[in-house]
Every structure is written in C-alpha cells, then in structure tokens.
C-alpha cells in the first residue's frame, strides 16, 4: 500500500474507479491515485490475461494501461487525475470503439 506522507492542503478530487466513487488528490496522476487507493494492479494483459500494474511511472513500460473516460489503453502514469473522471480496469485487449 502506498501512503501519502504529508497531508498537504491538496484539494480532494472525486472520481470513479470501476464505477465506484473514490477520491484522489490534485497533483495525482491517475496511476498515483490508484496506488494510493491500494490498487497495485490496474489491468489484465492482452496476451495472457495476467494482472499488471504500473512499473516505471514515467511512461516507458506501458503496464499502467487503464480505460479513462471510455478510452482504452491510456497510460495512467501520464494522465493527470481530474474531478469526475471515470477510470476502469483494462481487461485484456482493447475493444474497438472504446
């Protein structure tokens, strides 16, 4: 579990994770917000279906892929969290149109 060190005055951002209302903080990437919620895995791979989570947090490993606001395979570590966002687990291959 990743814990926030300093409860600084960063505003709370509400968003949905797989349909459930949850909270992150301003300044979070989507990937950071998920780790702070204890979500170490955020996707199942398109090859074997194995669970994965982000490894590098700098945009090179492509293991933090999630569905953000209906668009699949987004790099969660590069997308700033925004109020009202919908984040979903990426289940395997992406569906065309999503």
């Amino acid at each position, binding site marked *: 579990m990743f814990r926030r060190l300093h409860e600084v005055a960063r505003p709370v951002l509400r968003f949905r994770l797989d349909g459930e209302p949850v909270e992150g903080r301003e300044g979070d990437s989507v990937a950071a917000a998920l780790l702070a919620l204890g979500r*170490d895995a955020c996707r199942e791979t398109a090859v074997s279906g194995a669970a994965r989570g*982000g490894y590098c947090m700098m945009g090179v490993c492509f293991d933090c892929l999630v569905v953000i606001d209906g668009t699949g395979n987004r790099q969660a570590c590069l997308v700033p969290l925004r109020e009202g966002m919908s984040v979903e687990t990426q289940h395997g291959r992406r569906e065309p149109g999503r």
Partner: protein
Amino acid sequence: MSDEYDIVIIGAGPAGMSAATAAVAQGASVLLLDEGAGPGGQIYRAVTTTPLTDRAVLGPDYWKGAAIATAFAAAGATYQPGATVWHLDAERRVGFSVDGQARLVQAGQVVMATGAQERPFPVAGWTLPGVLSAGAAQTLLKAQGLAATGRVVLAGCGPLLWLFAAQSVAAGLPPSLILDTTPRSNWGRALPHLPSFLATPYARKGLALMARVRRAVPIVSGVTELAIEGEVHAERVVYRRGIRAPVTVPVDHVLLHQGVTPNLNLPAAAGCALDWNEAQACFQPRTDEWGATSLPGLFLAGDGAGIAGAETAASRGALAGLAAAAALGRLSETARDRLAAPMRARLTRQMRGRAFLDALYRPATAFRRAAEEALACRCEEVTGRMLRETAERLQVSGPNQMKTFLRCGMGPCQGRLCGLTVTEAIAQARGVSPVEVGYYRLRSPVKPLTVAEFASLPNTEEERLAVERG
C-alpha cells in the same frame, strides 16, 4: 505555437531546460516539448510542484533543479508540457501530440534531451503487481508524496538505489530490507578509479548518504540470485548469496533498480548511429563534444547521450543549446567556444569519479539477461527461456530476427523494457559481444498515437497515389 522554430528541444529535464535557456539567450526561437505535466524531467520531477516542502526529505541535490527551472521559466522559450513526441526525422520534422491532437513542427535544429530510463531488471516475478522500479517509487515520492508501506524490499544496485533509500529514510518510511546485488567482483575493477572518485564531492556525499541508510535499514549484500513470487501480487522475495541456501522474505512491495541507461527510441528512430558502451553495458547514441549526433542538425544532451548524472546533464544541455544556436548562425564559432569554455571546465569537474561509479555498479551479467522463467518482454510475454531456446535452435543472429520470431519488442513499449535483455541473450547464445549483435531497428511512432491522429497529418498528391491505386 508556430509551425517552425529555430530550435526544438525535447525533454524538460536538466539538459533540456539548460539547452533552452542557453539557446534563447542567443536570440533563437525555441520550442520545448515535454511529456511531463511540469518541468524537471525525471531527476527533478515535480520540482516546482512537489508537496514535500521539507527540503531535507528529497535533499539538496534535488532542489538544485529549482534554480534550473527558474532560469528556464525566465528565459521565455515556448514551453509545451503534456506533449508526447512520436516522430523525429533527419529533415528535423518533429511530430507530437497534445491531448490527442497530432501536430508537426519544423525545426532548424533539434536538441533531444530525452534522458535515461531504468535498466530492465528481468528477474522472475518482476511483472507482478506490487513490484515497481525504485525510480517509480521515487517519482511517486517527489510528485505526490506517496511512499510504499508495509514490508518493502528494495533490491538491486546503483547510486539511485542508495539515494532513494536515503530519501525514504528521511521521509520516515524506510524500506524493510535492502538486497544489494552489486557484484563483489566489481570492486576489483573499480578500485583503480577510487582515488579520483575520493577527490570528488560525490564521494563524501555518497558515503554519508550510505551511512544514513545503513543505520536505518538492514542490508544484505552480495545477492547473486533473486526471484519474486506470488499468485496475483508479489508475496515473497527469494534470494541467494552465492552457494548459500535460498532465503525467502515475505513482502508487500518490491522496488527494483539496477542503474539507468539512455532512452534510445527517439534518436534511434530518427536514424542516429548507436554505439555500445562496454563500461555501462548499454547502447548510447554517438555524439561529439557538443552533443551533435551522426545526423546533421540533431543534437542529444544529457543522460540520453550517455549516463553521467544530472549535473553534467545541465552542462551538456547548455553546450548543445549553444552549438545549435551557432549552427543557425546566431553566434559565431568563436563566441560559441568562448561561452562554452567555462561550461566545459565545469563538465570536466562534474565527470570526475564517473569511472568509479560505472565500474562499481555495472550490473551482474546474470541480472542483465532474463531468468529462464522471467518475462524478458513484458508486452508480448516472452520469457528468458524462449529467447535462449530460439537463439540456439534457430541460430538467431540479432534482435530483429528474434523480434520476427517471438514478437519481443513489438508491443506498445517498443523494446524499451526488453531491448538490452534481448541483445544480451543473443550475445550470450552466440558467444559474441553485444556490439556484433546490435539493437532493435526502431521506427516512428516512438510512442503510440491513434489512427485518427495519423489520419490528420498532411500528405502530398504523390503520397496519395502511392496508396490509392485502384
């Protein structure tokens, strides 16, 4: 934003920011594109926004980035954060996307300041949730003030591993255990460089930092084998020291690190020549003393041109910025050389001691090749065993044939997390140096963009007719 700039700089770490500041000072129009949300790159990540205001946590070296960012902001370059660069070519066209919109800009000169990434660490289980790179954990600490808690094992080698450990100690959440994989045999090769290292400020700082870590964290050194086990999450680390019996440690998180290597994808896709750096066991684009690559008008500065650390990156960035401005005729070569002289003197000082660090922290051969059960290619899920068997069975001579046979390097990361591993696996099977094996042939887009973004790019009538023939 315009369609043309004198100089386009890619990356807002110390090299990119310093290049921009130096080039703007010579009157060049400069566009700096960066994938991050704010300036700093990886080493000074979130230096203008970090919630960790207690400067003791991230340390004085991190906060040196604030001055570089301030100077960059004051210089007045056009700065586009959130920009993912996916194309660069020898004609100095730069393709990038912001918020899902693709754009092309024409650069008179280009300075790539694309930095480093952590070296792959393909041990069994490194793909399990709960395992992150130490650099990733450090990014979370800098940018969000997040730290791993519970039973946290930090494993590997290299200066960044110790720096991160010290930062975690200062933050009050040290790792539970450090497994040091620095090969004991490295000391023999490092010792001749020790005197010059001891003469640098890095030595004193480094030793003090390691002492702080040693006081707070149990350390197991001489680790020669490492595996992470668990069903759907990292649950245990199993390690060995030489011939001693394996030791199993229950874990909540494992943080891996064995050094950093240049980001190759953009310069290689542009067509820049690569060289093998034997001391650092990685490929790096060929550059001259100004950062000029093998392609005219394309410069490369900072750790992307060879690992030497943040302070040298700033110096090398400023030199490349000057050289790019001079190439455009913004200043004479004499003026360039005069301005460069103090930078070069600084760079020489900053480079002292590097040979010692390179020799000491060169990762063990066993950890540079994928373990049999480890996924060498995380994207296409190709194991170390598949690489070895295919290399032996089908006489694979290089990574491009291997890619064709096994799909390694074909996934979205485009070989970033498997390229060196695959080259070293083939080198081992063939009994030759990685120089002879070579690297993946890389192409645009170096980061994914949508089909619709591609479709939005301009084309000529001739290009249309090459496709629409019916």
